[in-house]
């Protein structure tokens, strides 16, 4: 049953539009409003602030930002291995490994000689985003 005190609490917290109130209390609030002469004034007292809050529209989406974020998304995983495929035979795989090691050695040597490389490595290791996800796990947000 809705009391006068609870009706005022709800209006003070959620505003003058009962549709924005917690679902569990909307029906009793509507019944209280219909049966209580002074209840409308409680809602009206919140209406102007609701209007001000509602007039503050959402910021416009930046299309360039949207495209940048889309470009950063992971690419589809390619399935390269097919049973019986000649192009990924054992010999081919071994050759690819040797080539990879040779290229990797040359690239890393050049990279490590570059003073800017240290800055890049420091920057990438300085940021640890795990704190955010620890918080999420603690709240059970990602629980299965």
């Amino acid at each position: 049953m809705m009391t006068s005190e609870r009706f005022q609490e709800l209006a003070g917290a959620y505003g003058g539009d009962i549709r924005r109130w917690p679902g569990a209390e909307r029906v009793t609030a509507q019944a209280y409003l219909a049966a209580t002469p002074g209840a409308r004034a409680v809602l009206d007292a919140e209406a102007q602030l609701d209007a001000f809050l509602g007039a503050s529209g959402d910021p416009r989406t930046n299309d360039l930002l949207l495209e940048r974020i889309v470009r950063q998304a992971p690419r589809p995983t390619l399935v390269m291995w097919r049973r019986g495929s000649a192009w990924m035979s054992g010999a081919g795989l071994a050759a690819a490994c040797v080539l990879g090691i040779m290229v990797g050695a040359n690239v890393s040597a050049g990279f490590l000689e570059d003073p800017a490389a240290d800055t890049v490595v420091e920057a990438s290791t300085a940021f640890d985003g795990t704190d955010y996800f620890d918080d999420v796990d603690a709240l059970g947000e990602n629980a299965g």
Partner: protein
Amino acid sequence: MSLIQDTDEVLVAGVARGDPASVRAFVTAKLPRMTALAARMLGNAAEAEDVAQEVFVRVWKHAASWRPGPAKFDTWMHRVALNLCYDRLRKRREIGMDVLPERVDEGPAPDAGLLARDVTVRVQAALNGLPDRQREALVLVHYQELGNIAAANLMDVSVEALESLLSRGRRALRESLKDMK
């Protein structure tokens, strides 16, 4: 289970596979929401875009390991965004920039009344002046339209405490905006 949650789960599964159509649909749906949340928490549009982009970096990283359950992916994204916002608010205080940027003159309005843009600026300035937790409660419930239980869980408070934050926040806003008609 709501339609929104269903849609999110389908899109997140597509994102995890790297499906370009799912990625675009997901960003189109969630970017305005994340940008709005951060803009209202930080009172700064450029920083809000940085936060939104950072949220998606984490989405790309974690979408594949997301396990659908009672928790909504949207709520998880809110938690990440809020943590990033609080990180920035904390750094502002550490460097002595305690006041949120984009504060505007809160003097009386012109007689001719307020244009919509003026109202937006005044309301954001009033929001900026609230204590962080009151602002967070109002942004989550009024603007992001989270349910009271979801918002309370997100803020790690009881529903009663959430309602207290909302009431105090609204009272303070009303006081800040009392000259507006």
